[in-house]
């Protein structure tokens, strides 16, 4: 049996424990976040799990005024928008996440390159409450 331990659900299980995990290719050293068994750069299937330090910078972002159903259910709307972005992690991979702790009243003041650190947000209430990865200014 092949050793395929980097299954995709593991990432979300780690988030539930306040951890942001990834993988390092044992052949070329490429970092993948989320973790994956087969390296997208060299195609090796030998990888090890890593835990990131949760630090990075803002690479791209938007402030969303028309949310999808899932975010509308979490209370977001045109009057209560939210920021979502792509974060370049110090380890060298990028990830999509909500960005909290920034001034939503003036999106042009949010700057690409802003140093960020990982945090976690709960969306939903009671039994439907779930934890999600987010970043905030470092």
């Amino acid at each position, binding site marked *: 049996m092949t050793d395929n331990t980097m299954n995709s659900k593991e990432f979300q299980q780690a988030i539930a424990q306040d951890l942001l995990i990834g993988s390092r290719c044992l052949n070329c050293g490429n970092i993948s976040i989320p973790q994956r068994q087969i390296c997208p750069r060299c195609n090796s299937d030998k990888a090890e799990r890593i835990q990131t330090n949760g630090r990075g910078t803002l690479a791209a972002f938007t402030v969303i005024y028309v949310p*999808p159903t*899932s*975010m509308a259910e979490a209370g977001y709307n045109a009057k209560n928008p939210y920021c*979502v972005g*792509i974060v370049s992690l110090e380890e060298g991979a990028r990830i*999509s996440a909500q960005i909290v702790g920034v001034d939503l009243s003036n999106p042009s003041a949010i700057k690409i390159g802003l140093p960020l650190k990982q945090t976690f947000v709960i969306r939903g209430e009671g039994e439907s409450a779930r934890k999600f*990865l987010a970043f905030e200014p470092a």
Partner: protein
Amino acid sequence: MTKKFSRGVAVVGVGMSKFGVFPELTSRDLFVEAYQELRQSVQKGFDPKDIEAFYMGNFTSDHFENQAHLAPIVASWVGLSPIASTRIEDACASGGVALRQGVLAIASGDVDVVLVGGLEKMTDLPGAKVTDALALAADSMFEIPAGFTFPGFYAAMASAYIDQYKADPDSLLRVGIKNHENGALNEKAQFNQTIGDVMAGKRKKAEQKGLPIPEWEDEMAFMKDLKANPMIAWPLRLFDCSPVSDGAAAVLLVSEELASKYSDSPIFVVGSGQASDGALAERESLSSVPAAEKASKHAYAMAGIGPEDVDFAEVHDCFTIAEIMASEDLGFFPRGEGWKAAMEGQTARSGSHPINTSGGLKSKGHPVGASGVGQVVEVWKQLHGIAGERQLPGTLKYGLTHNVGGTGQTCVVHIFEKRN
């Protein structure tokens, strides 16, 4: 090594329904409209029994119409059973990929005559459900939980583009104004209105309701007015986004050797390329669409031409920033120069590189599975000099289509040539 088709492929007929909101029509009704127009467009006529295969682009009739397995149903609806009928799903690139599959089927020698269709019936669902259905094209495990929407993805790309090239955000609004100018001359467009027409409509409505009549200095002032043009996902506003649409389009492909049987003025598919990519966050560049560049390079090499030879292009402007990035990905302008070209009018009908003379997805409408096929209808019209008031001047030889799925996970490019 440059790849070539094993044999040539020609387009001998095209058709499309009007794009828009049609509560009384289903996707198959819309396809009938497109197919009937196609039948009229084949110069020497054709027998439907000649058609040997049907490739149909459709993103998600499963969600929009509670109907999967749509290709044989549509084929039967227009009397084409029992030919091989296949639905192609590559999100908003479904139509362009269906076209490519039809081209490849003929080039392979397996069939001589292929009908390509594209259709989507989106407006039966409420707006939020449409947004959710479109979001299925993104990575549901690692992108959607972040809170992204499709306008949000392209807005994030716009933020990276504006930051990297110090671009003027007004260039986005210019793309919208230009595409509405073109769409105003296209009777098939969902919004065949200029922004000036939209402004006049709003003033009239206010007058009828006895409300204060809004005034704007010019179209740009309207586009910058947050009340008239609200923010959807900063920096993208309502008029930066293509609409939710119903529509269908169809193209008849034949092998090059059979082309003269159907038409004295076919157009030839001389280049075809397709590429893929991972989720947006995984990409080297957030200010371009790498798969579009790869697909176009393949198509250019096959056609033996470069971007400088292309007379006009129909590009996938699902959002205004997408058109600016496409104008660079396709090689019409150097990196970081596309926004300036948009500001200077170089992509207008009178410019050096006309883009989206049809009005583009922005103004013509974006019934997602139909969009990539609908683009070919405009190329056909322009190359034949039958585009009416929006006809480009001079002799046109090469037209290009560029169709994108998701944020660029799928890109497909075709180059068409009109000979003599």
